[in-house]
């Protein structure tokens, strides 16, 4: 009698164990279990993210992170990294998400997963106000030199729109800007919001060409191989966009209407 009961219990236990979800989504699971979602941002890219005088983070992307965490029923934990660190932190599983002005490209998506975009922007060319260049077509000339950030989307933009121009690759936005100001390049390509910031800061010394070049889809990135995590984040993004919440938040931080 006892033996049979024991056997029955054992079989029951094994059945339960076998039917348990076969290694469910790691990322989603660990986020829920831990009660926090670890988000990585760029740190100082107003108004996406910036540091308050009291040492906390605030900004458009911080708000996005907090709202997503709230919907998931967890707390958001923010960390700062640089451009390269965005991919590295996901690959090493030190972060669950990056919300870091990250443009999604097919090449990048071979190593990490991107959500649907939460922001659309464009790369545009920026040049000195007194430059003789009038339109983007003018710039496509071998006598001009265009600068951009290495390893970013700028390479494709220049190849597509200014194939005849000379290329200068720089280690960062700051170097590219310095090159423009020093006259070492005739134009640089950056995203439109960056350009707007710089134009304002340099008070008329630089201007932007109106043509919208490469379309940039800014999206949330997460470690590859976590389909449930991706599914959940995408659902949230869809609703965030559709409800108008995104447009509202954007207006709050950027002061203008979002691009479609």
């Amino acid at each position, binding site marked *: 009698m006892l033996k049979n009961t024991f056997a029955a219990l054992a079989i029951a236990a094994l059945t339960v164990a076998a039917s348990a979800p076969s290694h469910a989504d790691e990322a989603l699971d660990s986020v829920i279990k831990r009660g926090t979602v670890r988000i990585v941002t760029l740190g100082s890219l107003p108004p996406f993210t910036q540091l308050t005088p009291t040492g906390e983070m605030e900004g458009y992307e911080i708000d996005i992170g907090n709202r997503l965490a709230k919907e998931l029923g967890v707390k958001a934990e923010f960390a700062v990294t640089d451009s*390269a660190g965005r991919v590295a932190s996901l690959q090493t599983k030190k972060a669950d998400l990056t919300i870091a002005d990250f443009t999604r490209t097919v*090449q990048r998506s071979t190593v990490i997963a991107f959500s649907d975009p939460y922001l659309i922007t464009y790369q545009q060319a920026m040049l000195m106000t007194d430059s003789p260049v009038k339109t983007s077509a003018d710039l496509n000339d071998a006598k001009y030199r265009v600068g951009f950030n*290495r*390893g970013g989307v700028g*390479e494709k933009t220049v190849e597509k729109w200014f194939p005849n121009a000379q290329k*200068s690759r720089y*280690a960062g936005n700051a170097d590219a800007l310095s090159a423009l100001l*020093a006259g*070492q390049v005739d134009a640089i390509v950056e995203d439109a919001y960056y350009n707007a910031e710089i134009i304002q800061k340099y008070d008329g010394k630089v201007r932007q060409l109106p043509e919208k070049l490469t379309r940039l889809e800014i999206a949330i990135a997460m470690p590859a191989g976590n389909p449930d995590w991706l599914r959940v984040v995408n659902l949230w993004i869809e609703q965030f966009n559709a409800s108008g919440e995104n447009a509202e938040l954007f207006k709050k931080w950027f002061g203008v209407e979002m691009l479609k």
Partner: protein
Amino acid sequence: MEFLAGQLRPIYPYLGELYSAAWTTLVLSLGAIVAALVLGTIVAFGRVSAHRLVRIAATFYVEFLRNIPLLVLLYFIYFLLPALGLRFSPFVSALIGMALHESAYMTEILRAGLSAVPVGQYEAAQSQGMTRFQLQRHIVLPQVFRTIYVPLGTQFTMVIIASSLASAISVDEVSGWMQTAGADTFRFFDVFLIAAFVYVVLCQLVNLLHTVVGRLLFRAKG
């Protein structure tokens, strides 16, 4: 082998650029070392000059350039000089920076070579009625060149290594290639190995050339 080919496939599209990058590295280094030799010779003479002010100026030149990082010098030439009216292309800026930097070391090497020329040579030449310039050209410089030829080889490889910094001022050389290809393909280990391999090959080629030319030039000495 199949595995290796598969691993490297993402990098294939970038190999064309690697070829031109390697040439850039080589040409840049060659130009820099030649310019450094010229500059170094001038300053070396300055270092042993009879005029005190000239000696001080030469010493300051050497000490300043030996103690600042090449990277800072490159930034200075490429980003700052335009504000003072001197704008050079990335390649030329890198060449100037590397030449200046290297000339400081060249000066010391040449100075040692200069002082190795026996005093008797000078007297013998003067008794022959040679002018000072003829003296330098026919007697001194060839001997100095022979003395410094060996260290010249090491310096050349050091210049090739130093050229990696030119990527910071947008020169498309080998380390710049590594950064771009790596950022695009995420195959950082592979591009590193390839870039390292290119540098090793370049250095070895230069060494080989140096040895061969050395044997040809100084055949008598043996």
